[in-house]
């Protein structure tokens, strides 16, 4: 191989490694929990992801203004979140969610994106329950089969 190819190759590999390293740094700590957020002083205006469960009973919807208020919890601490927009279908109380945004001065997390986690488990609707609009050609089996 000619030296210039080697140098070019090294520059490409070096650049790629740097990009991959940077991406992985972010990806490894994909989100922080409310407890971790509480234990460190996070400067406002820093972009963050916070993950946990949507605290049951905490969700308030203002559909006219498309504003959602809820708390994200990790079982110990919880964090108040405000989000204006359309959350994904699977977003609901008691389910996992990851929010992206910034912490306000008043301690409320202003989310620009709300993401819902889903389980690795798949099953049809329990027998007899067939919600409108959900087509099913095969009779549903008992769940957990």
């Amino acid at each position, binding site marked *: 191989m000619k030296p210039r190819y080697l140098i070019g190759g090294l520059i490409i590999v070096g650049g790629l490694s740097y990009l991959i390293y940077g991406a992985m740094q972010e*990806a490894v700590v994909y989100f922080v929990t409310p407890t971790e957020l509480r234990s460190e002083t996070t400067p406002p205006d820093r972009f963050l992801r916070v993950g946990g469960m949507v605290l049951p009973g905490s969700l308030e919807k203002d559909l006219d203004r498309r504003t959602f208020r809820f708390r994200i919890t990790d079982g110990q601490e919880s964090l108040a979140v405000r989000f204006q927009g359309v959350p*994904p279908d699977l977003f609901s109380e008691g389910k996992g969610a990851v929010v992206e945004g910034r912490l306000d001065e008043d301690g409320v997390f202003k989310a620009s994106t709300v*993401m819902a*986690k889903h389980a690795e488990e798949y099953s049809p609707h329990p027998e007899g329950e067939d919600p409108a609009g959900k087509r099913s050609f095969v009779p549903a089996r008992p769940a957990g089969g």
Partner: protein
Amino acid sequence: MARRILGTLALILIVTGLYWGLVEAPPDARQGETQRIMYLHIPSILVAYLSFFIVFVGSCLYLWKGERRDDNLAHSAAEIGVLFTALTIVEGSIWGKPTWGVWWTWDARLTLTAILLLIFTGYLLLRSLIEDQRRAAVSGAILGIIGFLDIPLIHMSVYWWRTLHQPPSILRPDKAPWDNIDPAMLWPLGINFVAFLLLFFYLLSLRIHLGEVEEQARRDRLHDTA
């Protein structure tokens, strides 16, 4: 002839599996109709894993014994692996938007899968840029072995780090597939997986044949100019 049978069988199973998965199987209780993307998404990534495992084996064999045949195997499998990795990412993205709420996010699993696609696109590029056959094969083999190491990382990423992506439903030691997936959904998934496997071996045998024809043509050319 054997290849034609393989191709026909793959086609029949793909049509069967898709009909079963997209029409016959019940919609998921939580995700509704969107969950049907699973019938493509899981087989795609499993075939991509297999492709790069073959790249790994072929590359090791080539570095050890230096036979053209092993390099052709690795190169062929890499091309198909890139195809199925790209498919996996597209399918996952379409699945992610309605369920997660985003087309893409930089969590460890998605990032590492993007890196896998990048490495093996680079592998194909590298091979096409190096004129000399032997050098292309040796460089390819080294990159192919390194690139394969990304797969255990992808698979374990959902256990080792916090991710948006859920843990595996199929390839895991602690739970059987039928503990995670209802039989009414596991059957069409299994059929699609076998269908994708047959399609993979069909494409692989075609691509290996193409590599052999190319090699023959190269040899003939050398012979003519000599």
